[in-house]
C-alpha cells in the first residue's frame, strides 16, 4: 500500500505557495486563515480518506496521513485533520451529512461534559476545540451516538465560543451548547471514544513527523550558514550532536507514523498507534530542544520561522494523549 506521488506533489506545492512565513504569522494574529483553507478545500484534500459515497474525496487513510505530514511540514494553519480523518470520519461512519465548511471535534479535554437532551438538543461544554471559532459543525460522540451540531463560529443561537489558543497560537476554543439543535445517529461498532482517541493520536503523529522534518532541515541550513569563531557552526561537535539528534527524530517520527498508518489501515492498531505517539512525543521533545539550541537567540524570535514548527510540536505532543498515557496502552 503506497501513496500516489501526485498527492504528495500537489499538496506540497499548494502549501509551499500558501504557507509563507507571513501567512502563518497572519493566521496566528487573526485566529484563522480563510484563504489557505478555501484553497485547500478546493483540492478536495480536506475530505481525503472519506468515501465518495459519503460525500468525501475517497482515497485511503495513508493518503490522509501523507497530506497531514505535509500540513505539519509547512505548518499550514488549518484544521485539516479535524475536518477530514477525524470529524468527517465520525459523521460518515454514522451516515450523517458532511457540511461544506470546516468540521471540528472535541479532543476530550479535562472537564468536558456534553449530554443529549430528551428533545434531541445538545447541552454542555467542550474545550480545547481546534478552530472552534471557524467551524461550521462539531462532530462528537455522546452516549454512543455520533452527534453533529452547528457551531458556525458561535454565530448561531444556543452556542457560545470562547476563544483560546494552543502553545502554537492556534485556536483551541471552549464551546458551550445550551439546548443546541443537533443531529445524532448510533455510532457503529468500532467507533467509540477509545478508537477516536487512537485516530486523533495518529493524526498528530503524522503532523509531527512533517514538522520535525522541516525543523531538522531548517537547522542544518542555519548551521551551515551561520558563522562563529571564524567557521560555520555546523563544524562544532556540540552543534553536530544537535543536527544528528534532530535528523534521527525526524526520521523516527515519520517512520512510526507510516508504520502505524499501515497497521491502522488493517485494524485497530492499538499498540502501533500508542507506540507511534509515544515515539513522536519523545522525538518532538528532543528535536525542539536540539534545534532551538543550535539556533541560539535567533530561534526565539518571531521573525525567524523555527517557532512555527517547535510551538506546534509542543502543542501536538500533548494533544490526544501524552507519553504516560500511551506508555500504559503500549505496555499492556
Amino acid at each position: 500500500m503506497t501513496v500516489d506521488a501526485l498527492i504528495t506533489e500537489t499538496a506540497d506545492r499548494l502549501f509551499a505557495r500558501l504557507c509563507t512565513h507571513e501567512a502563518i504569522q497572519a493566521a496566528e494574529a487573526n485566529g484563522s486563515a480563510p484563504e489557505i483553507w478555501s484553497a485547500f478545500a478546493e483540492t478536495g484534500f480536506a475530505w481525503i480518506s472519506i468515501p465518495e459515497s459519503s460525500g468525501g474525496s475517497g482515497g485511503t487513510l495513508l493518503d490522509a496521513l501523507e497530506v497531514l505530514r505535509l500540513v505539519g511540514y509547512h505548518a499550514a494553519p488549518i484544521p485539516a485533520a479535524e475536518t477530514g480523518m477525524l470529524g468527517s470520519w465520525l459523521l460518515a461512519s454514522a451516515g450523517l451529512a458532511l457540511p461544506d465548511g470546516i468540521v471540528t471535534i472535541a479532543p476530550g479535554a479535562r472537564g468536558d461534559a456534553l449530554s443529549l437532551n430528551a428533545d434531541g438538543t445538545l447541552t454542555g461544554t467542550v474545550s480545547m476545540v481546534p478552530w472552534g471559532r471557524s467551524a461550521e459543525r462539531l462532530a462528537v460522540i455522546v452516549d454512543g451516538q455520533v452527534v453533529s451540531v452547528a457551531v458556525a463560529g458561535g454565530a448561531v443561537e444556543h452556542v457560545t465560543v470562547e476563544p483560546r489558543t494552543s502553545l502554537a497560537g492556534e485556536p483551541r476554543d471552549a464551546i458551550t451548547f445550551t439546548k443546541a439543535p443537533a443531529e445524532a445517529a448510533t455510532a457503529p461498532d468500532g467507533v467509540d471514544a477509545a478508537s477516536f482517541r487512537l485516530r486523533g493520536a495518529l493524526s498528530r503523529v503524522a503532523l509531527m513527523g512533517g514538522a520535525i522534518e522541516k525543523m531538522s532541515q531548517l537547522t542544518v541550513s542555519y548551521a551551515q550558514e551561520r558563522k562563529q569563531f571564524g567557521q560555520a557552526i555546523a563544524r562544532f561537535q556540540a552543534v553536530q550532536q544537535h543536527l544528528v539528534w534532530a535528523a534521527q527524530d525526524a526520521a523516527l517520527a515519520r517512520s512510526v507514523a507510516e508504520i502505524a498508518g499501515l497497521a491502522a489501515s488493517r485494524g485497530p492498531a492499538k499498540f502501533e498507534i500508542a507506540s507511534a505517539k509515544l515515539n513522536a512525543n519523545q522525538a518532538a521533545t528532543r528535536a525542539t530542544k536540539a534545534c532551538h539550541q543550535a539556533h541560539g537567540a535567533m530561534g526565539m524570535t518571531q521573525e525567524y520561522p523555527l517557532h512555527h514548527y517547535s510551538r506546534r510540536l509542543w502543542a501536538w505532543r500533548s494533544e490526544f494523549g501524552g507519553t504516560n498515557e500511551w506508555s500504559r496502552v503500549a505496555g499492556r
Partner: protein
Amino acid sequence: MRFTPTELTVDELALQAEVREFLAEELPPGSHEPGLGMSAAHDPAFSKKMAERGWVGMALPTEWGGSNKKAVDRFIVVEEMLRWGAPVGYHWVADRQTGSVIVKFGTDEQKARFVPKICAGELGFSIGMSEPDSGSDLASVTTRAERDSGGWIVNGTKIWTSNAHTNDWFICLLRTKPVDEVGNKREGLSQMLIDLHNTPGLELSPIPFLNGEVHFNEVSFNDVFVPDENVVGTPGMGWNQNTTEMAYERGGPDRWLSTFSTVEQLLRETAGTDLDTRTLELFGELAARWWGIRNMSLSVARLIDAGEAPSVESALVKEMGTRFEIETIERLVELVDTELSLESSSLFERLLAQCVLTGPGNTIRGGTIEILRSVASKGLQGLPA
C-alpha cells in the same frame, strides 16, 4: 575546586524572614501573575519599594547609596523574589551587574551620577554586547567608536538587547581600536554608558519573541556621540572589565530558580490532595535536586564574600542549573499529561505553558550552555579561559 558546605546565619535567616513578610504583604497570592526568572515583569514602583528596604544594589558601598551587604544577603533577597515571581525586571541588570561594574571601574563622577539612582531603584540598565554576527563569540565586536573631540562617534548595531525599550541606559561594549591594529579581538574594546532614550542617532527596534512578547531589541547607532565622561574604566580594557561583569552574572540563584516558582505553584494547587506515587516522587526528586544546587550556589556566594573569584565554580553551577531547569520543565510536562494553554484557569498550567515557550531561551542567556562548558572545562584543566 571545593564547594564548602554553608548554612545561613541567624542574621541571614532574619533577612530571609523580612523579605518573605515584605512579599506576603506587597504581593499576596492571587494579586499578581508571577514572572519567570529573568522574564520578570518591569515595575518601577515595586523596584522603588525594594530599594526603600535597601534591597537594590545591596552589595554596593553605602557611600554611593548601597547597603554594603554581602553576596549572601543579595542571594537571599534574589532567591525569595524569584520564588515569588516578583516584578524585579526594572532593576534586575543594574542591581546584578552594572552597579558593580561602575563601582569597580568607574570614575567618582560616574559613581555619583549613576550608583545612587541604581540603589534607589530609579535607573534601569540594559547590556549592549551581542551583535548580529557575533553569536557566542562575544569578543567579535564590530560596532566601532571613533575618537572625536571630547568623546567618541559610534556606528554599528547591537542585537538581543533585553528590555532596552523599558530600561533607561545601557552599558555597551564597543570597538575603539581595529583588530588588525591590536592583533587580538579581545583587545581594543571599551565599555561606554549610553542613554537609551535621549541619544541622537540611537534607534531601538523591538524584536518580538516567538509568542509575540517583546524582551529583545535591536539597537542601531548612527553617528552617536558618547562623551568621554561616559567611558567606563580604561579604553581598550573593555573585554576584561566585561568578563568580570559576566562572572557576576553566573552562579547566582536566577539560574536554577526561574522555573522553580512553577513547581511551587503546583505544590500549592495540589496541597491537601492525595498525591499519586509519580507526583510524590517527582516532587521529591525536584526538591532534592533544588536543594543540592542551592547549596552549591550558596557556597559560591560565600566564596565571593571571602574575596575569592570562583569563576569556574560559577560556570559549573550555572550549567547545572540550566540543565535542571530544562529537565524540570520536561518532567512537569510529562507529569501533567494535558494540553497546555497560556489561558488556562490554573496558574500552574499557565506558568508551565510559559516555561515551555521560554525554556529554550534558558540555555542562551548569559552565554550559551556550550560556552559555559568551555569555560568550565578550561578551568578544570588549569587553562586560561
